[in-house]
């Protein structure tokens, strides 16, 4: 049940500017992500399977195309629902709260950045977003999946397993080290409250 190091993850990119959508899509695709782009927060929620007034996705709404999204990257300044509003909705949703969210903005406003990080954003990218920024996304996705696996581990209450039974423990621990280094980078505020990066 190892997380495949080469697994293609799906990123949902949200930006009201067509030019910026084109850019972020290219950056993500070049970095081997599967991409869906939408031009508004409300469309993003639709893709995520959540109506604006819901807090949990309804399994009984067949008209929603629920694709698995591994990370949401959104512009901050958008008309209607801002990136911050979208972030809040995602974090308030029982079904979506564990999806990592990254905020982008062309303006470096510390209070804005802090607000987003406080609300649960993993990272804040200053536009223009660079290819090197894309490398910071994978660790956040993997961290979430690692947490998921840990939960499964505890549920199965099999304390003999270290991490993931079947394959590459080395790959996993190297990945974890890389994740540690990435997560502790300067641009990210440290939030260890729900840390699952403890060495077993």
């Amino acid at each position, binding site marked *: 049940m190892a997380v495949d190091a080469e697994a293609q993850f799906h990123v949902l990119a949200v930006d009201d500017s067509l030019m910026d959508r084109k850019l972020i899509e290219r950056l993500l695709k070049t970095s081997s992500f599967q991409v869906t782009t939408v031009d508004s927060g409300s469309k993003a929620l639709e893709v995520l399977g959540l109506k604006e007034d819901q807090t949990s996705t309804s399994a009984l709404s067949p008209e929603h195309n629920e694709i698995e999204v591994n990370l949401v990257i959104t512009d901050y300044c958008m008309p209607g629902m801002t990136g911050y509003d979208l972030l809040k909705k995602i974090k308030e949703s029982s079904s979506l709260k564990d999806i990592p969210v990254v905020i982008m903005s062309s*303006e470096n406003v510390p209070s804005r950045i802090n607000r987003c990080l406080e609300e649960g954003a993993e990272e804040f990218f200053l536009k223009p977003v660079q290819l090197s920024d894309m490398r910071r996304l994978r660790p956040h996705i993997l961290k979430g999946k690692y947490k998921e696996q840990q939960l499964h581990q505890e549920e199965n209450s099999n304390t003999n397993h270290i991490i993931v039974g079947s394959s590459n423990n080395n790959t996993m621990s190297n990945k974890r080290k890389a994740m540690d280094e990435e997560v502790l980078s300067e641009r990210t505020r440290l939030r260890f409250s729900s840390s699952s990066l403890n060495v077993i």
Partner: protein
Amino acid sequence: MESHGLKTVYIAFASDAFRNGFLDNQYTQLLQLQDENEPKFVLQVATLFLEDSEKLLNELRGILDKQDVDFEKLDACVRKLIGSSASIGAKRIKNTCLAFHNCCKEGSKEGCLKCLQHLAQERLLVKSKLETLFKLEKWILAAGASVPVLSQ
């Protein structure tokens, strides 16, 4: 033979554009994102930028046309243009916008009008640079050669 001359012109023209600040390293980054899967990527982004910037200039003009200039609205518009010009690497436009931003903060209608005029000029200049670069690329490819890689 023919493509060699074209390549030389292309490199010289691009170097000149960079040296004079019309384009900066961000433009080079965009070129690096272009490949055989998305051969028209930069052209598409540049086209969108020119469309967006034209709309923004019209919006700025409209705001400044009013008796009572809404400097907040003006500044919000300028900041949008700062964002998109930075995304394509249109350095001179970005810098003109920064000056414009200052005039907005000062509430100087005259200063803003001057900046607007300056912006319109800069937009036409970078438009012309981009169009020439794309034309040269097209001719190089038509001659069966590959476009030189620009690096900064």
